[in-house]
C-alpha cells in the first residue's frame, strides 16, 4: 500500500493550485453574481491545457492518470465549482464516450479539437427522464446513411457554450434499455438549438441548458458504439464522471473546512476564539474526518480506473460519500460563520449553494445507493 501522491501528481496539484489562486479565485464571486464566465478565463484554461487533461497525448491531450485528474478537479473546485464542473463534464462524460466508443475516423477528427478546448457536453437527461434514464424519449430515426434526431434534452452542463454534444436517443417505437443509440453531434448542425439557459441556485458560473433537437441529421459514422448500446455508452461514461464529481465535492468541502478554520481562529466570543471552544472544534474534527474518508474512497476509485479494473461500485461510493461529506462541511461552515455565513461577503455562502448539486447530478445519492447495493448483492 502507498497513500502518497507521486512527484508528477504533486507537481500538477501545485501548478493548478497556483493557477486557481491567481486566475480563478479573484473572480469567483463576480462569476457567481453575474451567472457567467468570462471568455478570458476560458482562453486561459485552454492555454494551460485543462481541456485536454484526460485526452491521450496522441490526440493532443495531456493524458494524465485519473488520480492526477482528481487532484486537478479538487484544486479547481476549491476556487470555483462552476469552473470545475465545466472541465469535469468536458473531460469525462462529454468526451470519454468518443474516446472509448468512437470510430477511428471520429476520434481523429474530433478528439484533437476537444483537447484543444472546443467544449463538449453530455445529453442524456430529459424533462421526463432523470434518475430513470431508460425512460428517455428523444428519437433517432434511420434515414439512409443518416440518423434524424428529435426531442429535448435538459440540464445539459456546458449546453450553451459547447461545440460538441454526446446525445443518447432511441429508435422510434422502442422502450427501456433497448433500442438506444449514442451520437456525437456538432454544434451548428441544423435543428440543434439552445432552447433555454437555466437560472440556478449554485454553479452559476457554469451554464446549464435545455437543448432542442428538431430533425437533426447525424451521419451514421458519428454513432458511438454499436447500435442499441446508447445507454450502456452513457452509463460507462458516468462511472468516470462520478469520480470527477466526487473530487469536485471534495474541493468544495475542503474550501469550507479551510474557511471555517481560518474564521474560527480569528472570531472571538465569550472572551475566547471559536477555535478554542469544543463545540466548534468538534465540528471541525468531523468535517476533516468525513472529507478525509471520502477522499480516500475517491482516490481508491481513481486508482482502480487507472489499473483498468472494474470501478462502478467504488466510483458510486466515492460520489455518494464525497457529496454528502461536503454537504455536511458546507452546512457546518455556514454555522460556524453565523450571520456572516448567510451573507455573500463570505465565500461559504456560495459554497453552501454550490455543493448542493453534487448530491443530485451524475446520479442522485439515491441512485448511487442502488448502484452500490446491486453490485454488492451480486457479490461484486
Amino acid at each position: 500500500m502507498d497513500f502518497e501522491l507521486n512527484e508528477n501528481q504533486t507537481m500538477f496539484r501545485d501548478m493548478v493550485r497556483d493557477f486557481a489562486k491567481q486566475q480563478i479565485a479573484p473572480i469567483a464571486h463576480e462569476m457567481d453574481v453575474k451567472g457567467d464566465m468570462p471568455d478570458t478565463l476560458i482562453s486561459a484554461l485552454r492555454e494551460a491545457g485543462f481541456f485536454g487533461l484526460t485526452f491521450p497525448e496522441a490526440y493532443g491531450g495531456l493524458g494524465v492518470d485519473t488520480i492526477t485528474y482528481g487532484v486537478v478537479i479538487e484544486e479547481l473546485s476549491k476556487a470555483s465549482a462552476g469552473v470545475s464542473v465545466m472541465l469535469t463534464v468536458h473531460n469525462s462524460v462529454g468526451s470519454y464516450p468518443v474516446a472509448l466508443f468512437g470510430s477511428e475516423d471520429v476520434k481523429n477528427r474530433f478528439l484533437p479539437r476537444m483537447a484543444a478546448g472546443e467544449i463538449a457536453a453530455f445529453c442524456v437527461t430529459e424533462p421526463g427522464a432523470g434518475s430513470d434514464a431508460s425512460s428517455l424519449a428523444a428519437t433517432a430515426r434511420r434515414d439512409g446513411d443518416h440518423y434524424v434526431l428529435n426531442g429535448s434534452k435538459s440540464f445539459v452542463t456546458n449546453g450553451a457554450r459547447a461545440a460538441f454534444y454526446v446525445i443518447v436517443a432511441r429508435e422510434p417505437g422502442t422502450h427501456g434499455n433497448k433500442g438506444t443509440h449514442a451520437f456525437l453531434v456538432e454544434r451548428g448542425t441544423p435543428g440543434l438549438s439552445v432552447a433555454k439557459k437555466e437560472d440556478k441556485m449554485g454553479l452559476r458560473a457554469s451554464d446549464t441548458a435545455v437543448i432542442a433537437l428538431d430533425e437533426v441529421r447525424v451521419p451514421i459514422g458519428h454513432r458511438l458504439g454499436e447500435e442499441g448500446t446508447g445507454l450502456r455508452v452513457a452509463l460507462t461514461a458516468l462511472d468516470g464522471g462520478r469520480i470527477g464529481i466526487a473530487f469536485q465535492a471534495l474541493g468544495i468541502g475542503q474550501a469550507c473546512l479551510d474557511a471555517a478554520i481560518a474564521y474560527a481562529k480569528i472570531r472571538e466570543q465569550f472572551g475566547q476564539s471559536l477555535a478554542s471552544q469544543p463545540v466548534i472544534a468538534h465540528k471541525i474534527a468531523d468535517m476533516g474526518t468525513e472529507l478525509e474518508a471520502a477522499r480516500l474512497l475517491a482516490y481508491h476509485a481513481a486508482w482502480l480506473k487507472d489499473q483498468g479494473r472494474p470501478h462502478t461500485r467504488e466510483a458510486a461510493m466515492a460520489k455518494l460519500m464525497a457529496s454528502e461529506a461536503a454537504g455536511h462541511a458546507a452546512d457546518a461552515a455556514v454555522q460556524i460563520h453565523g450571520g456572516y455565513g448567510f451573507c455573500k461577503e463570505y465565500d461559504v455562502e456560495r459554497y453552501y449553494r454550490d455543493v448542493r448539486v453534487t448530491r443530485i447530478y451524475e446520479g442522485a445519492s439515491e441512485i448511487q445507493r442502488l448502484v452500490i447495493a446491486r453490485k454488492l448483492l451480486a457479490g461484486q
Partner: protein
Amino acid sequence: MQFQFNEQQRMIRDMARDFANRVIVPVAAELDATEKFPKDIVRQMGELGLLGMSVNEAYGGAGLDTVCYVAAMEEISRACASCGVIMSVNNSLVCWPLETYGNEDQKKRFLTPLASGQKLGAYCLSEPGAGTDAAAQRTTAKKEGDHWVLNGMKNFITNGANADILIVFAQTDPAIKHKGIRAFIVESTSEGFSVIRKEEKMGIRASDTAQLAFDNVIVPDDQVLGPAESGFKIAMSTLDGGRIGIASQALGISAAAYEASRAYSKQREQFGRAICEFQAVQWKIADMATRLEAARLLTYRAAWAKDQGGRYGEEAAMAKLYASETSHFITNEAVQIFGGNGYSKEYPVERHFRDAKITEIYEGTSEAQRLVISSFELKK
C-alpha cells in the same frame, strides 16, 4: 498511490482468517455467554505470532509492518471482538512502548516473553478519577533507595486479571503535574498487587476488564520505563498506536455484521420476495458497505503512515473515530435488517451490536478523538 496488499500482507490476512474461522468462530457465542477468558485461544495466537506482530524478531516478535497488524486484527475481531482487544492491548499498548522506550535489559526480560506469547500484558492508565483526563493520576510512586513503592488503584484494565506483566503509570511528583508521571513495568506476582474485581460488561465479555489495587508494591529501579518526566508522553504516544488497533477491531466487528446482513437479506423472504429486493434494505446495505470501505481506508492509511516513520496521531484518531462510529452504525443497521432475529442471541449480530459500543469509548472516547483531530486541523 497503491491500494493493494503485498504478498506478505495477504498471507498474514489469510492465516489470521483461517485461524479465526477454524478456532474462534465456533466458540465465540459461548465465550460471550460465559464471560470465559479464552486462555487456550490466546496461547494459540501467541504461537502464530499474533501477540507481538510488529516486534523485532530478535525480541520474539514477528517483525511485521502495521498494515499486517491491521489485517490480522480485523480478521480476529470479525470472529470475536474480545479476542481482538486482548490481541490489540498486548501488541499496541504493551509490546510497543516496551520496544520503543525500553532498554536492552527490559526488552530481553519483559518484551521477549510478551511478544512470543509466553506471557500476557496489560496497560494501566485509567483510574476511577482519571478517564479522559488521564493526567489526573492519583496512583503514586515513591522512590526509596534502589526501588519505587507504588500505591493506588487502576480501573477498566483490559487483561487485568490475566496479565503477567503490566505497564503502570503513576505520579512521582504532583507538584510538576503531568510531568511527574512515570511508567513502571510491574509483574503480577509482586507482593501488594491484587485484582479487586472484574467488571461485568455489556460487550467484549470474554476479555477481562479488571479493577486493580497496588498496595505498597515494590518496583526495582531497573523496571522504570523511559527517563524522568516521560511517563505521560509514553502514555499518549502509545495510545496513538493503540487507536489503530481499536480502529481495526471496529472494522472486524463491522465486517462481521455487514456480511451477516448481506447474506440474511438474500435469504429472508417477506411479501413474497427476498428482503434485499426492497429499496429500503438495499439502501442500508449500500450505506453500511460505503462507510465500512471508508473506515477501512482510513485505518490502513493510518497504519501506512505509522510504517513510514513520521507522525500519525491525526490519522490514527480519524481512523479510530470513524471506524468506531461506523461499527455502531453498521451493527445497529444489522440488527434492524435481522428484525426480531437480530434481537435474539441465536444470531451473532446481537453480540456484534453490544461489542461495537466500547470502540467509541476506550483508548480515547469519540469526544477525545475529536479534540485530538481538531487540534491538528487548527494548526494547519
